[in-house]
């Protein structure tokens, strides 16, 4: 069964109904409907060293948490609330994972001291601490603390010169267009609609989303320019999107 794309009012009503009866089935439905967002955010923060698969799990659980905690009275849109919550979960995941960046030893040691210091200060103060408060507790300069916080960030958003910022699964990409689709429907429709594409376009889509090649690599393989591959990809995806939205 393919849930059709719902308007925000209808989604809001479901949230209110869920707030009322806390029916798991509604929760599951709401989660499924917004999975595209979780996948988008996971892809967005995919970094060298942190595989997309792990992040997607963290983001998905973050989404479940968002649905469970969303308060319709608060006047915030769900997607904003969920984005905040999911980013928070992703941040926590990265924090637990350790270092990707080489940093001077003193910064690494300082960073290790920051975690416990921030935790104990947060408990003491009943709120997150400020940098001066942390600096005083660990006995370092404010500048060093800021530097250590920066060096410890593994969740850096996709860097500027990564040639293909647009990676991730095809269904999550198409899911952005219509987050109402469930994953099994995606695969079925995808198989059907791929068959309608000319062979060259089909090859390019497979190389991109199944093999995970970059546009340049695909270009080298099929003997076209990267610009050409880019245009063909865009056109094919637009076509697939058409097929998806027509079948809802």
């Amino acid at each position, binding site marked *: 069964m393919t849930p059709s794309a719902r308007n925000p009012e209808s989604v809001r009503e479901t949230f209110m109904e869920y707030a009322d009866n806390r029916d798991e089935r509604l929760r599951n439905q709401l989660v499924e409907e917004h999975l595209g967002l979780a996948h988008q955010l996971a892809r967005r923060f995919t970094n060298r060293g942190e595989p997309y698969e792990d992040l*997607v*799990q963290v983001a*998905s659980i973050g*989404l*479940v948490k968002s649905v469970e905690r969303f308060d319709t009275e608060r006047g915030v849109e769900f997607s904003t609330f969920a984005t905040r919550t999911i980013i928070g979960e992703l941040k926590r995941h990265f924090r637990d994972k350790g270092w990707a960046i080489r940093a001077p030893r003193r910064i690494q040691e300082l960073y290790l001291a920051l975690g416990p210091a921030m935790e104990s200060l947060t408990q003491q103060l009943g709120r997150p601490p400020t940098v001066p408060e942390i600096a005083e507790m660990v006995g370092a300069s404010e500048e060093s603390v800021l530097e250590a916080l920066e060096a410890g960030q593994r969740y850096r958003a996709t860097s500027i010169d990564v040639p293909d910022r647009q990676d991730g699964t095809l269904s999550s990409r198409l899911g952005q267009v219509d987050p109402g689709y469930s994953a099994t429907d995606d695969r079925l429709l995808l198989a059907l609609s791929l068959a309608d594409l000319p062979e060259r376009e089909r090859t390019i889509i497979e190389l991109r989303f199944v093999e995970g090649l970059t546009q340049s690599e695909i270009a080298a393989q099929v003997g076209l320019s990267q610009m050409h591959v880019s245009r063909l990809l865009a056109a094919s995806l637009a076509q697939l999107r058409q097929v998806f939205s027509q079948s809802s």
Partner: protein
Amino acid sequence: MRSVSTDQPGAGQATVGIPHEGERVSVDHAFGISEHAEDGLLRVAVRGEVDVATAPTLREHLYDAVDRSSGVVVVDLSAVTFIDSTALGVLIGAQERSRDHGTQLRIILNEARIVKIFEITGLTELFSIFPTVAEAVAP
């Protein structure tokens, strides 16, 4: 054979009793964990609701079981009536911990609604999930 039990009042607190005339029998939503060592495997059996209130207890027991085990830990969720995101987080944490310890986690789950949330969040790809104890312990 070692057996450890923890009983805690969970969010939905109806308890089973011997039904009197006219009294309805309710499902026991009270949270509980017990541990069983069987056939060289550790089986952690959970029942009731696993949510914000009870997930920390689950984490404690699971992590402890993972640390002590030298092979497989079976997480028996077949009597779980409800699961939320904190519970899912605990399971993920336990999975990571078991990876570090060289232990294997096997989950028993057959309640459709709970399997559903595992499917939606992609956890069916991460975990080895079995519908019954028999299948989980089969060689």
